[in-house]
Structures are given as structure tokens and as C-alpha cells.
């Protein structure tokens, strides 16, 4: 056996290369060393648990998000008592006009937000990666068409389109599904652009040329050579995309074109709370804080992941 250390007298062993040992373990180590990323991951885990076990949590409070409690309201419809009706029975107070338990609404709202956010992200990532990868790899007329479509979609006034769409689609179509679809259709062009440019750079790399010269076909090159080198980009992009999607869903619900009442949604609660902000500010604070914390947690995790994947930022922090 021979290795390629210099010839004659045995050289002292080279120190191990820093920051590039075992891929995944290294990634975890670096992520764990980043306090903000850990906090983000904790937050994400918390909201996931809340969303998954929403009925359990609201049962803990003793209410579900649909039953009215008019006893908790004054005659004018405002909640009775301190801070929007915060009490032992209603931990976050109640919703004005209906008296529904705000804690149950916020907890169930996490479900809507995360489902729509994750669903729209998954769909837009899937379309974006497939389109971007193939466009960058094959080029030619296909690439030109894709780039134009991306340009058009990115420049499209999508808010007006969505509001218009909300008015014409039949009500039999489930609204959350429609939301996911719309957000995905307007979400993939950004992904496709990033993936396409990465693919253009990657396909010039010698290992791709080497694989071609070995007789590899298009599918093999795309799946075995290019895609594994795009995973870091895809993961990071997805974690940053989820909070943007949650925000977009909230914005649409705020405008009244999101999920229909009475399904709990943070965005719609915030929209309704605007009218009550003078008399009952806590109605705005609870769903608003939930939305803020959820997007912050996802963004922190995404940022931390990006730094952990990029060995060049190693020395910058800490």
C-alpha cells in the first residue's frame, strides 16, 4: 500500500482539515454552536407540536374554537373584564362579538398557518426545483420559455389576481387547498431562478463533464450528479420560504380572501382585531405575537442552516 505523502523520511501527519469532516455530523455540530439557530429550531419545534396537538391544547383550556360564549361579553359585544376578558377560564381572553376562546383560536390558527405555509412551500419547491434544474441543464428553447414565464410571474400583480380569483372560484373548492395552489403558483418562479443559476454553474464543473464522458445519460446526471450538490441550497431556501408563505397566508386571510370563517386563522383574527384595537388591544396582541414568533423562529433556523452549510462563515460568528 502506498499513499501520496512525500517520498522519503516519514513526514509528521498533516493536521486534519478543519470544518470539513463528516458532512451531517459536522452540520449538526455547527448548528448546535449557533445559539440563535438553536432558539429558532426550538421555536419551530414548539409551533409544530402546538399545531399537531391543537385539540389537546384547547381541551386543556376547556374550550374549542367554535363554541360561542356570550356571557363573557358586554351588551356592546366587547369582552368583559381585564385585557379582553383574560381569566382562569379564558387564558387569552375571548373574541369580541362572539365570545369564542382566543387561546383555542390561536392554537388552532397555528394549524392553518403551518399547514398552508408548509404545503405551499413544498409545492413551490417541487415545481421550482424540477423546472429550474431541467431548464439550467437542457438549455435551448425550453430554457428560454421557462425564463420568460418566470419573468412574467415575478412581475405579475398577484394580490389583485388572488382577490379576483377568490370571488370567482366555486365555494365547493376547499379554500386552504386553493390558497396552497395560488401561493405555490406564485412561489415557484423565485426557486426556479435560483436553482437554474446554480445548475448552470454546476454543469460546467469537471465532475459533470467527466460523468458525461463516461456515457451517463440526462437522468443520471440530473439525479446523481447535480441534485445532491443542490441539497444545501434547497433546504436553506425552503426554511426561509416557509415563514414567507405563512406571512402571505396571513396577509390573504387579513384581506378576507384566505380561509373562510369560522376556521381559525391568525391573519383573519388580526384583520378583525384592527377594528377593536381601541377597546380591546389584546385581541390584536395574541394572534399577532403568534405570527411574529412563528415567522421569526423559521427565519432564525433558516439563517442558521445557511451559515452551517457554508464553511466560509465558520470564523465569523462566536
Amino acid at each position: 500500500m502506498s499513499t501520496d505523502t512525500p517520498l522519503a523520511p516519514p513526514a509528521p501527519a498533516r493536521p486534519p482539515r478543519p470544518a470539513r469532516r463528516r458532512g451531517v455530523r459536522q452540520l449538526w455540530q455547527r448548528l448546535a454552536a449557533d445559539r440563535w439557530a438553536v432558539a429558532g429550531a426550538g421555536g419551530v419545534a414548539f409551533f409544530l407540536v402546538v399545531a399537531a396537538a391543537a385539540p389537546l391544547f384547547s381541551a386543556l383550556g376547556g374550550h374549542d374554537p367554535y363554541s360561542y360564549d356570550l356571557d363573557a361579553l358586554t351588551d356592546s359585544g366587547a369582552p368583559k373584564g381585564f385585557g379582553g376578558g383574560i381569566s382562569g377560564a379564558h387564558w387569552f381572553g375571548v373574541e369580541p362579538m362572539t365570545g369564542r376562546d382566543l387561546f383555542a383560536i390561536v392554537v388552532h390558527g397555528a394549524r392553518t398557518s403551518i399547514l398552508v405555509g408548509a404545503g405551499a412551500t413544498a409545492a413551490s419547491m417541487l415545481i421550482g426545483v424540477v423546472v429550474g434544474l431541467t431548464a439550467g441543464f437542457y438549455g435551448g428553447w425550453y430554457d428560454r420559455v421557462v425564463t420568460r414565464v418566470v419573468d412574467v410571474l415575478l412581475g405579475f400583480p398577484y394580490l389583485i389576481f388572488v382577490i379576483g380569483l377568490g370571488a370567482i372560484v366555486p365555494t365547493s373548492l376547499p379554500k386552504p387547498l386553493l390558497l396552497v395552489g395560488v401561493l405555490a403558483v406564485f412561489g415557484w418562479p423565485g426557486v426556479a431562478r435560483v436553482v437554474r443559476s446554480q445548475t448552470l454553474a454546476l454543469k460546467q464543473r469537471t465532475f459533470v463533464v467527466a460523468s458525461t464522458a463516461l456515457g451517463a445519460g440526462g437522468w443520471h446526471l440530473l439525479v446523481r450528479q447535480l441534485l445532491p450538490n443542490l441539497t444545501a441550497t434547497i433546504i436553506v431556501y425552503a426554511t426561509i420560504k416557509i415563514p414567507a408563505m405563512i406571512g402571505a397566508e396571513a396577509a390573504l386571510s387579513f384581506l378576507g380572501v384566505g380561509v373562510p370563517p369560522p376556521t381559525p386563522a391568525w391573519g383573519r383574527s388580526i384583520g378583525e382585531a384592527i377594528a377593536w384595537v381601541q377597546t380591546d388591544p389584546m385581541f390584536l396582541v395574541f394572534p399577532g405575537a403568534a405570527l411574529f414568533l412563528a415567522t421569526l423562529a423559521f427565519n432564525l433556523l433558516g439563517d442558521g442552516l445557511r451559515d452551517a452549510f457554508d464553511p466560509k462563515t465558520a470564523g465569523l460568528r462566536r
Partner: protein
Amino acid sequence: MTVSSTEPHLTKATRSPLLAVAGLAVSFEVDGETHQAVHDASFELHRGQVLALVGESGSGKSVTAMATLGLLPATARVSGSITLAGTELIGAEPRLLREVRGGRIGTIFQEPMTALNPVFTIGDQIAEAIRAHRPVRRAAAAAQVLELLGTVGLDDPSRVARSYPHELSGGQLQRAMISMAISCDPVLLIADEPTTALDVTVQAGILDLLRDLRKRLDMAVLLITHDMGVVADVADTVVVLRDGQIVEQATAAQLFSAPRHEYTRTLLHAVPRLPELRLAEPGTPQPPEPQPLDPTLPPPVVQLRNVVVEYPGRRRGHPVRAVDDVCLHIDQGEMVALVGESGSGKSTIGRALAGLLPTTSGTVTVAGVEVGRATRRELRNFRSQLGIVFQDPASSLNPRRTVGASIAEPLSLHTDLSPDAQRRRVDELLEAVELPSRLHDRHPHEMSGGQRQRVAIARAIALNPALLIADEPTSALDVSVQARILDLLLALQRQIGFSCLFISHDLAVVEQLADRVAVLHRGRVVEEGPVQTVLRAPRHPYTARLLAAAPVADPTRQALRREAWRQLTLASP
């Protein structure tokens, strides 16, 4: 370990040294681990001398030079002393260091293209360097720029001063860099691998310039290089570094004639040698033309007939002709070398052979398949008969796949072997390239450059190819590693019997390895024949110039070659 200097230094000992490095130690702290890059290095450099710091990658030669300039990253810990004409540089005030950099010490880097800012003209950048250190008016600086550009042997200084970096060749850029480095009359010039990125004929010119400037401006030059030929060409004293330690320190004449340390000996031994240069006298009878192909012999594995490859020019401009009317054949089991400088079209021919580039006209036939006309299926089958080894193994292996998966790639593409059988074959291949089978599950970044290149070779020979294309397989490697990779290639060729196209810029390597050689110049084959004839008695003036420009690791022989090169360039500029 420091070897005390001997007689040649004693005469100069009365004069105090310009640069004195004493007990220099540099360490880096990365992720809590300390990595000692330089241990206890001491050497002295006097005015008008060239001192070469020699070593392989990771030996600490560049770190030593950067320590002199105070340009090490913040993670570095430096101790010891570096004095420039009596002024201590380690731990000096930032203001003093700024004055020294570019003022008293000029620096030239390896890659002139990246060392210059692409959005400013050469003239502006040199003028800026001057005005950073001296209060001169704009017009005076501009005049000085022209004078400097003339000093470094550039033909049309005012045109060069107006040019942007991308408009000049590598050699011109390196000359411009040198003029910038000497713009403030430095007492010391640090040249960090100044010719590594350049072609040999350009390199010879730059080394000539350095030698000349040292004499004219009475500067000291600290030359950092891995190339023993360059050392033999210009250095007065040599410091050999290995793993951050000085193993030998001697005058150039002494070091090359009687190296004392074993490492120096192995380093010198690993340098491939060129035969003695015999330049053909004008009017020498031409050797007979090569015989027409004997019909009884098996047909050649590779046959190129009048091949032309053109790249589309920018915006409706004329296409660039990279390969111009090339005819070449490679017989079964033969190793043919393609040599030429950058831009000569040698890699283009390699890629056209593999069907990676379309040819504009002419035919390329490999193993009975006409590459340009082959259907997809034929091309796929043909590629199972072909192996390619690229220059940089770090980029030719997919960083996300294990070594085993990379080697097994051709097996899974072209055979029906079961995973178990594939694994056995991969182990066999690892053994064939002399790598332990425990490397099977490693990733490329966990291996050294030489090991990676062995993996690339294993992948190339996985299907017992009829043709192996080796595109500069050793130019990214250290010289001792290169020697072993070349030995391996030769052994494998004997064992498997593939034909081989060996693309290289290094004539000495070609001499060691190939049966036949074709010399390319601007896309044309200017000379072709058996290695023994072409490299010993070249007929074409370009081949002769190429041979004379390649430095050899022997100061006395190098002086003769230098003279021969000067004669040749004077004869045909």
C-alpha cells in the same frame, strides 16, 4: 533544524542583511485546534541577491512571505523576528506596515489576472500605487507609469497603460504587475510563484526580467516557488522547507550539485529530466517522412483526419479556430503525447475525441466509431471504451458522493453487475491504483490530491477502456506525487494495454512517458514524431523554443539553455 551557512556567506557577513528572519514561528488556530504552519525559521537575505523558498504545498513557504508583509489572517499567531534593514516588522504599527507594503517591499502574486482589479485600466492602477506612497501630481504619476512599463519590457507602454486587464495576455499582465511592484523603488521584491500560471516561453521572459531588475535596481528578491527549474534559473541561495521546517539552506550551486538533506535529494530526484538540447543546424537534412500506414497492421484506435474545431465568436464576430486541420493517429497500446502552451488547442482535441465537443469539419474515429456521426446509442457504447482523467481531481470527482460510488459509476452505467460484484470490482480497482480499500466510503475532500487523482484513474480504467485520455493529469500535483502518478499510469498501461492520449504542457513529463509526441501551436500540429527524435533534435523552430524555455533543475545546464533560448527568441521573435 537550521543548517548553518557556509563560505559564500562569510564574505557578505560584514554587510548587514537586508532581510533577517530569526526564529519565525506561525501557527493557526482553527476550531480550537492549533496548526503549526512554520517552526523556528531563520534565514538572511542581502541586497542584490535572490533567495528562493522552495517546498511542496503545505510547506509554509507562502505563509513565511505573508508574515513579512504582515498580511496573515487574524487567526494566525506569529512569534520570532523579521527585520527589514534593521526595522522590526512583527508587531509593528499598522502605519509603518502600510508604508513598508508597496513602498519598501514590492509583491508579485501567482495569478496576475486576479491580482489586478478588472474595472480599472492598468495605468490607473499603477498610478494609484505610486500616489499611495508619494505626493506626486497626476500627470507626473502618469509619466512615471509609462517609464515603468517600458522598464519591464512591454512594447507599447501607452497602449498597455490604457488597457483593462482582460485585454492583455498573462505574460503582459505579469510584467505590468512587476512594474507596479517596483513603482516605489522597493528594496525587497517578494515574488510568490510568479510564473506558475504562465506558459514556459512566457516564464523564461519573466525570469529574465527578474534577473535583470535585480541587477539594475540592486534589489533583493524573495522568490517562492515549487519549481526546481525556476530555482536553478534565478536563485543565489535556496531555503528548502518541509512541513513548516527548514530542512536545508545552501547556495544554489551547492544545493543542486551536492544536496545534503535526504528530502532535498528526493525532491530533486522526483523532478523529471529533459534530455540534453541539441538544436538542429540550419540546413540539416530532414528525416524521412513517416511511413504510410501498413495495411497488415491492425487499424489505429484513434484516427483524426483534417479535424477543425471552431468556437463561436462573440456577437457575430469571426469564429475562433481552436483546432486547425489536425491529423493524428494513435495505434493500439501506444501512448501519444500532445504538447503545447495554453490556447494551443490540446484540451480541445481531447474533448473532441470524447465527443464532448462538436467538430466543425474533418472526421474523428475512435475504436471504429465515427464520433461526429454516432447515434446516441453508439455514442454511449463508444464511451464505455473510453476513460478520461482530468487535470484537477478535486473538481472531477463529485464532492457529494463517496469514492466507491464515483468509481462504480461507469460500472452501473454500462454493466449489469450486482451491487456486491460492483463492490468487489471497486476494491480490485482501488488495489490496482495502490489505494487501501478502506478508502471506499470516504468523500473526496477527505483525501490528498494524489489520492484523489488515483481515484479518478481507477474510475477511468474501470471498464478496461481501449483509449485513455489524460488531460494534464499531474499539473495540479506536487512534484513527488507527480512522479508516482506517472509511474502508476505507465504500469497500468502495460498491464491493461490501452492506448493513451497524454495531454501536457510539460516536456520533461512527456519525455518520460510517451512513445510519440505531437507539438501543437495555435491549433496546428507543427511537429510530430517519436519522442526521442522530437525532444532531442527538434526540427521546427517553435519546438526548439519550447524546449529551450523549459528550465531544468541544474544551474550550469540551465545557464546554457538560457543562452540558447535568448538566441532563439532573437532569431524569431
